[in-house]
């Protein structure tokens, strides 16, 4: 069984996530080769063939160019699996490759069970085991689902690849995330507001608890998207990554993109009306209650000593 792993490089950096691809391939028991549009000066630690296209020549991510390069490598390698990370790069490129290969694509794999792929359903409340009907299968892996105990070692045998392809989409530049303001990564206590707060006026309930605990308040993405809380307080993959002594998630369901930003917190309390909310998976304590009643009561108790 052969797997072709698709590593990522962005804005001059090799992304460490290639290690997760290797971790997955080991679990699957597949021989692997790797594909990277990157740089010879930042090679992944890996024993095997690395098909390398020079990012300096290819330019920043262009779906059609990357697709053509990858298809030519697949033609040479004839892998059974083509493995991406389920990232903004992976979910963009994988379906294009799958479509060209007439291959099945299984998205956001979290586990291998009896040799088949398991993916989350309904915000991770359920899981689904999926079987492909095609010879070749394209996979994307959930970030963080497959790790390695030890960082990989070795140096790859590099085979250079190139293409003349140009696509209809032109990349014109990067824009930094809205910066400045609050650096939550230094906070010892963070109380975060989720969509469960219901309306912007209720954000003050969260702020009050945060200040009673001598901490800061944060938020999940919908609360930020609705402009109830500014972006520089968003916790998650497209916000900040935090690891306070105490994280209190109020009305937050626990989507993977939120968990990625806070699951390393030392102690996690979740307040949620839904006993089955996936936040329960990472919470040390899940308080099943309406935050509008519970949080003010808690704040009072804490202030009262």
């Amino acid at each position, binding site marked *: 069984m052969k797997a072709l792993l698709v590593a990522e490089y962005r804005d001059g950096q090799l992304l460490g996530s290639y290690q997760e691809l290797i971790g997955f391939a080991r679990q699957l028991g597949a021989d692997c080769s790797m594909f990277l549009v990157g740089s010879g000066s930042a090679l992944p630690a890996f024993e095997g063939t690395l098909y390398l296209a020079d990012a300096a020549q290819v330019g920043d991510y262009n779906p059609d160019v990357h697709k053509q390069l990858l298809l030519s490598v697949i033609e040479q390698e004839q892998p059974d699996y083509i493995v991406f990370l389920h990232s903004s790069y992976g*979910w963009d490129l994988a379906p294009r490759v799958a479509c060209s290969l007439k291959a099945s694509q299984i998205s956001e794999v979290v586990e291998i069970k009896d040799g088949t792929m398991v993916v989350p359903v309904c915000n991770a409340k359920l899981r689904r085991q999926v079987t492909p*009907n095609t010879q070749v299968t394209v996979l994307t892996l959930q970030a963080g689902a497959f790790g390695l105990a030890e960082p990989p070692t070795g140096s790859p045998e590099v085979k250079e690849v190139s293409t003349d392809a140009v696509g209809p*989409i032109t990349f014109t530049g990067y*824009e930094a995330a809205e910066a400045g303001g609050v650096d939550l990564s230094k906070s010892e206590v963070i109380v975060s507001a989720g969509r469960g707060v219901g309306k912007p006026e209720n954000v003050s309930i969260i702020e009050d608890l945060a200040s009673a605990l001598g901490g800061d308040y944060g938020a999940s993405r919908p609360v930020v998207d609705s402009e109830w809380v500014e972006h520089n307080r968003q916790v998650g993959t497209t916000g900040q990554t935090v690891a306070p002594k105490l994280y209190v998630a109020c009305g937050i369901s626990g989507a993977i993109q939120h968990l990625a930003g806070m699951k390393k917190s030392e*102690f996690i309390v979740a307040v949620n009306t839904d006993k089955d909310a996936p936040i*329960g998976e990472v919470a040390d*304590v*899940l308080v099943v209650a309406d935050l509008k009643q519970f949080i003010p009561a*808690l704040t009072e108790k804490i202030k009262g000593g």
Partner: protein
Amino acid sequence: MKILVCIKQVPDMESKFKVDAAGTWYDNADLAWRMNEYDEYAVEQAVQLKEQAGEGDITVLSIGPDKVKEAMKKALAMGCDRGVHVSDDAVSSKEPYQIASIIAAFAGDKGFDVIFTGLQSQDRGSGQVGVLVGELLGLPSVTTVVDFNMEGDSVTAKRELEGGIRAVVKVATPALFTCQLGLNTPRYPTLPNIMKAKKKELLTIPVADLLDVDPRQQTAALFFPEKKGGGLVLEGEVGDLADQLVQILKEKTTVLS
């Protein structure tokens, strides 16, 4: 300008799910249904695009049983001009490639200038349908769009990357865009617009007219994940709960000392 928006109807994620008798999907009984959250941004963007251009015709398409028309009616009330319901009582056995093939078969000869889909669905969440439609139609597709701006036949879009960084790209229409959360602020349909929507065209096409490809994958089983967390679950009266939690925080953390 001709615009197509594809929407999916999904259950409310706060529902209590049960596995169905076949053991391959969740039981559809007793669920509240709504428009996939990502697709609300797609509908809103289509309506804003038409408003900005001062002209245009928006078709909203959804594949599924009769009940998906509820989500379509919301899209019509938000400002789409016409609906195409691809009637499929067996949508459950369809996978993303088949759904994309159906959409591509419908769109093939219609000359849409812009197609919007969601980045992913909230239940199954493959994040494949939009890109596959683009590939099948030979149209460029831009995913994870958080900012969209069209001038003439040129679109400047911002793709959201990890860490909230954005990649700015330019593409000429016809093109397809998959919409990410936060792209805009989806409007609430007003009562007059809900009334108006009732008079809009809602065409039904049997799925057999549009589908001629076999599935490339199937679901072997659907199940609940093993509970690994094993944290403490507290239930009861809020005053007691607050007392218990304060006690726990004193014992297990240093934040109250």
